[in-house]
């Protein structure tokens, strides 16, 4: 996982929170609220996909064979 993706989890969570905040503001109109809701849900899906369960590998590097093995 590279740095760009790493950042994007924090950003996505922030985006989700900001969307909620935006809708909560009294002067936010219908159209803007709908747009915020849509983008918030998109951030939510991104967060969720980044947190999706994956197979967790626990390995050990074998220097002699120069390859990894199960730990």
């Amino acid at each position, binding site marked *: 996982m590279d740095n760009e993706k790493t950042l994007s989890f924090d950003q996505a969570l922030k985006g989700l*929170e900001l969307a*909620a905040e935006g*809708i909560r503001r009294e002067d936010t109109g219908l159209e803007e609220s709908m747009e915020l809701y849509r983008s918030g849900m998109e951030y*939510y899906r991104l967060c969720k996909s980044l947190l999706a369960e994956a197979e967790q590998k626990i390995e*050990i590097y074998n220097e002699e064979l120069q390859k990894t093995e199960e730990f």
Partner: protein
Amino acid sequence: MALKPVSVTQLNQYIKRILQTDALLGNVTVKGEISNLKFHSSGHVYFSLKDQQSRINCFLPEDKVDQLHFEMAEGMAVCAVGYIYLYEKGGSYSLNVKLLEPEGEGDLSIAFRKLKEKLEKEGLFSEKHKQEIPSFARNVAVVTSPTGAAVRDIIKIIRSRSDMTDIRVFPCLVQGTEAAKSISRAIETVNRTFPDADVIILGRGGGSMEELWAFNEEIVARSIFASQIPVISAVGHETDFTISDFTADRRAATPSEAAQMAVPDVFRLRREVKDAELSLEEIFRKKLRFLRLQMEQSDPSALTLYMRQRLRQEKLRVEGLIQEIRLRGSGQIAAFSAAVDRQGAVLEGYSPYGVMEKGYGIVLNEEGNQKSLAGDFRSGDSLTVMLKDGNLKCTVNAIEERRQN
């Protein structure tokens, strides 16, 4: 009877042969204190070893300097292994050192301080070189002993926080003379074979200063500094500070803490994200309700209805007020006029005419000012006495003053 004279060179050559073929002097271990320490530009190190009575010149060749596990310092107690070497030209001998080790813990502290100063000066500990530890690591490299408690703790903590973070252990020695090289090589191996690693946890469990010593060696500090992947150093217990801790991008008090720093609590984050999503939906629904209400109120027929209601309410309110004023008004006015009558009576009592009504008179002098004392007048003065129905113009015949009580 002396032999035939020999040249100086011949004598020195002879001594050299004797000294350098002696089995004991060919491999001797000497304890002493370092003094006259000189780092030559060639990389060789010249110094003396001394005790209370004597000193011996020592020479440490450049290739052995590189293998030192510590920084040499003036006054440091060391143990040197080497052989006696004679410098023919000067006729002097010295200990040619092959191996040098500090003696005792106190001297390890000196070595530690020296190296710390040196690397600090070079900027290896500088904040500006520190890499940020990614907040969302997916791949963690662990450089430690594969059999120690540290690796078990690290894996345990990571698994308790995440079911999606891969862990790859890079085994190395964590104590003994070969440990520093082994650690350094492992860090380089991670960078070479596992560039996807988000972070390296480097560490070992607790131990004595000697046992942790590898983490105070320069070669380890250099490898940490050179690592492209951020390094968290977690050596020994909370109170142990090593050169490796200072050089690393972050220091953790223990291997377990390093694991916490390296890996986010995915289980908690999943809950947080779900909560944030639910709250977004709820806020959005609330907003829609609010907007619908606003819209209904702006609808002309709804507005008329609303206004009519408001009018009715206002009318009722006003009528209520009037009623109330009326009810209270009648009683209050009566009470008020009674109060006015009472006050009038009181005031009348104070009025001079009220007094004259009772048969009293008021005396004025010639200037028309009211006077109340006999002493205000002399015989022959004119005065006026005001009575209820008219005034009497009088002249004073005599004054009889009455003593005041």
